């Protein structure tokens, strides 16, 4: 393992070079084995390396090398000409390019003794896959680990940890167990009821269980993508008329001049994106071109993109220039309603930001601030000034709580969906249960097929369910005599 500080491009190139250099007669096997150990399994014969600490903003970068030629890599890149340092001991070393001997960076190096004998870049997820293939991790755990590795914020990390510890796995396992029991009881009714004392009540109980499960799975699916959002970041889009101060708001939120601001209307013509951590939640903030009709081709494209972003947004911040508001509160509310309609398809997920509050007389400011709250047909309204920072703190509190609602609190309530893969299987599962309801009274074989498909779909997440397992439940629950 060669942990280093963020700028690791040089290390990366050096490692790639080391690999290319080593492409001699047998591909990927340039280095002869210098380590002792048991013969490697076929799949593990290559030496692989990867940036293990995720891409993008990282405080610390970890480059991990695994395989038979790791020792050679450590020797020629960390300057151990004679022998390796003691294992499991971190040493501060200069990391050098083995070819030019140019110093690339300084960092901690340490190694762990492994078993075996070439070097190639790891395929995506290969370290994890190796652990998975070695039977060390279950499937949901592997996915949880992937998220943990990619976790950029505290909330994401907590969710990934929850999944690793199997909370989501347990939820799915519980569903799977209940579904298996439903299937076993339907199957018992099909295979044995003609000769045995299996009363019709069995099917009625299955009906209830199937409805319950269907409702629970659909509720889980209707978490409105919260889990996925927490993994990929909440899409927050700043939209509104030109010159309302949208770019200023973006710069305030990310605390750096990410977008160019000027008094000229139409300064922002494309989407400006920036990622930020909002109280532990990942947010992908986009500033967009001001919405207006324009004859300028470039600006028209910018407006089209802005509208597209608004369509896809999890949350839209509609920024309005306070100076354009009618002074009467009633008329101001009507104006804002009209304005929102021109910006958004629906007002469910938006916050109204009245910018340039500093330009209003103090009296009007207070009136607006108190009276616009709770006006029907309007979302949460906040007066701010990007110039004087007035109201920014209160606005951030509202924004944080909106984002938190969108993600769901990872420490509270039922675990949320974190994988698109899970979503697809669960949707199939719910649809299959609907098939049970559809055929329940006309064709029990087709109804049972529905439950069987549901079990199979969940099994794609929790693990395969075999016919024997179903029969075991049948014989445990019923006295079958023929």
């Amino acid at each position: 393992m060669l942990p280093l500080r963020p700028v690791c491009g040089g290390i990366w190139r050096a490692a790639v070079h080391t690999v290319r250099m080593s492409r001699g007669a047998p591909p990927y096997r340039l280095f002869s084995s210098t380590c002792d150990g048991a013969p490697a399994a076929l799949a593990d014969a290559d030496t692989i390396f990867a940036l293990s600490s995720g891409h993008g903003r990282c405080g610390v970068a970890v480059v991990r090398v695994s395989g038979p030629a790791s020792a050679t890599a450590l020797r020629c890149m960390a300057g151990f000409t004679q022998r390796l340092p003691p294992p499991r001991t971190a040493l501060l070393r200069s990391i050098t390019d083995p070819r030019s001997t140019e110093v690339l960076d300084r960092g901690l190096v340490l190694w762990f003794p492994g078993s075996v004998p070439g070097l190639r870049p790891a395929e995506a997820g290969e370290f994890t896959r190796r652990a998975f293939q070695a039977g060390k991790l279950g499937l949901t755990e592997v996915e949880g680990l992937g998220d943990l590795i990619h976790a950029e914020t505290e909330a994401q990390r907590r969710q990934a940890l929850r999944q690793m510890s199997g909370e989501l796995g347990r939820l799915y396992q519980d569903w799977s167990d209940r579904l298996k029991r439903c299937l076993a009881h339907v199957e018992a009714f099909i295979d044995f009821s003609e000769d045995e004392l299996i009363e019709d009540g069995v099917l009625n109980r299955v009906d209830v269980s199937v409805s319950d499960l269907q409702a629970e799975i659909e509720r889980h699916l209707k978490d409105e993508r919260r889990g996925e959002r927490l993994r990929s970041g909440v899409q927050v889009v700043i939209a509104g008329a030109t010159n309302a101060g949208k770019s200023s708001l973006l710069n305030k939120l990310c605390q750096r001049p990410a977008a160019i601001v000027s008094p000229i209307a139409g300064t922002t013509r494309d989407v400006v994106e920036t990622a930020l951590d909002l109280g532990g939640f990942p947010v992908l903030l986009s500033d967009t071109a001001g919405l207006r009709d324009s004859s300028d081709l470039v600006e028209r494209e910018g407006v089209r993109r802005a509208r597209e972003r608004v369509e896809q947004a999890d949350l839209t911040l509609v920024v309005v220039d306070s100076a354009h508001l009618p002074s009467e509160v009633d008329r101001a509310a009507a104006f804002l309603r009209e304005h929102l309609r021109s910006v958004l398809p629906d007002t469910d997920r938006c916050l109204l930001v009245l910018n340039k509050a500093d330009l209003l007389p103090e009296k009007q400011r207070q009136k607006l601030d108190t009276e616009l709250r709770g006006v029907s047909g309007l979302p949460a309204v906040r007066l701010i000034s990007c110039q004087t920072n007035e109201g920014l703190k209160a606005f951030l509190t509202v924004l944080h709580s909106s984002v938190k609602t969108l993600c769901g609190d990872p420490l509270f309530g039922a675990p949320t969906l974190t994988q698109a893969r899970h979503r697809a299987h669960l949707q199939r599962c719910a649809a299959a249960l609907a098939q049970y309801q559809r055929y329940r009274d006309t064709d029990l074989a087709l109804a049972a097929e529905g439950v069987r498909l549901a079990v199979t779909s969940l099994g794609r997440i929790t693990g395969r369910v075999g016919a024997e397992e179903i029969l075991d439940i049948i014989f445990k629950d019923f006295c079958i005599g023929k």
Partner: protein
Amino acid sequence: MLRKKLPFLHSLLSPVSRHVGHLTGHQYDVIVVGGGHAGTEAAAAAARVGAETLLITQKIHTIGALSCNPSLGGVGKGQLVKEVDALDGLCGRAGDWAGIHFSILNRRKGPAVWGPRAQLDRQRYRDFIQSELLSTPRLTMVEGSVEELLVTEPNPEEPGHHRVTGIRLANGSHAISARSVVLTTGTFLSGSLFVGQTTSPGGRIGDAPSSAGLSHTLRERLGLRTGRLRTGTPPRIVKDSVDLSLAKLHLPDSHPTPFSFLNTHTHCKPEEQLPCYLTFTTPGVERVVRESLQLNCHIQQDTKGPRYCPSIESRVLRFPGRSHQVWLEPEGVTSDLLYPQGLSMTMPPDIQLRLIREIPPMRRAEIHTPGYGVQYDFVCPTQLSPALQVKSTQGLFLAGQINGTTGYEEAAAQGLWAGANAARSALSMPTVTLSRTESYIGVLIDDLVSRGVTEPYRMFTSRAEFRTSLRPDNADLRLTPKGFEEVGCVSSVRYQESLRVRNSLQDALTALQALFLSTSSWKKKLPSVPISETKSTLLTGLDLLQYNDVTFEMLASAFPESLSSFMEFAQRLKIEAVYKPHCDLNKKEIERIQREENMSLPQDIDYFSLPVSLSDEVREILDRVRPSTLGAATRLEGITPAAVVNLLNYVRVTEKKKETPQYFDGERVREDTA
């Protein structure tokens, strides 16, 4: 069509040889040992494929005997009977001849799980089977007890591998040679009978035990792993001594449905059918069982018995305080006996009498023959190929209870398949396999050879993951063409009939799809059907036939010109229409399984040194079971998804060296096996 009369048996006994002297030195293609359900189907199938076949049994007159219950078919089992019939086997037609009470179980649960079933007349069943075998060309039957299986010395190039060369009969030095041998010894392999505290060697009351020589050859010479199972049968009750007015009358279907695709009606006329009776156990039964446990050897043994055909002892011990069903079934038209289904027992005969008299209709009942238990050896079926051939012994095939199954239908299905393959092997043709995606027989064999058994194996519809496609109504379409074209076990008459049916059904479906009308036109044509008006789309006749209340007859009377010629298939068409969308959905999964089944794992892999990342436990399982395909490996208990991915990679690498076949990507495999 059923023949109107069975040939009078005794006049036909001459081709049956009771003396075996002249057979010595004779070379047969196939020798079948055993005359039960597996043996008779095996012998008949081998002869149909074209092999000179010899059936050896202890007593000619017990050929085709129903040792236990006088019935055939049922849920899951009925599907097997239909499939055996589709492959031109005997049991379906025998059932149509001998049936005295026909009913389709699960009638209200959907055609995929209908269970055709019949109570049988024991004598008629046996007569039919014997007469059928006697008239089968290339088939000879002989009485005798097999002492030894003759095999070659192990092949020095393949240690542990033998070839079968024939058999040696008991009490004499008669060796009869054959290229293939099918063993269908039922419960006779090291069989022991149990009644009360008495134990005696044997496989069935009234028959001599089989020789220990055969067990010895299998275990010691061939090194086959065996296990021990148990089963039992109830006492037979004197009918006149039972007060049937105290039991619930159970009538058969008013229109008996034949098993065989060749029959339009059963031998028994509808009005001549006999009823069954239902009664229940009382607390007294449980008391008798508990009081007599000390006197009951069989029940104290921990040998595995069937969970689903348990003795009355196991039933009351496992589910105490309950009332259990007992069916009183007729044994035949002229029989004076009743068969109490559900009362299999092994206690001493005097206690058996006490027990049955605790059940109201049998207060004064007399026992004709006491019930008894049997324990017997079976050969762990994971040592067999999907052709039911012992992997280590070329030419040796096993079928029936010797493979750990229970039930007539399971035995018949294996017998047919083992017999057909034994003949093909003897005639130097490649063996054939049936996929679990195309038949219950395939499910049965795949479960046996790739998973093995821990208790007597019985068929259930829930074992067939594609049961909506593997229906009793379409067994002929699924298997008859294959049976003729690829296996050679189907007569050309049956083959031609199956083609006629297939083409007619196809034409009818085409005609239905050609009826393409708006919802309002359909409403005019079929005013009684609640067709949703909101649907503005056009509907075909096939769509309409999927409606619950629409029958093919209704459509045919609305469109007589295009549909009336298909009235013969009205029920089959209705079923096809309802199931078609589901079968289409099944197709993708079926194709995936078939691809996995096409990826064979070499039989000589040394799993312990295989350079693939596998746990020791997985290596141990694979080495023990030696699955013949990746598909079979996937279904093994204890095989992890990771192990399958690694095996898949291995198969890919080794296969790639030979050819460049099409495979699916690894990602999908991981998903599917997870």
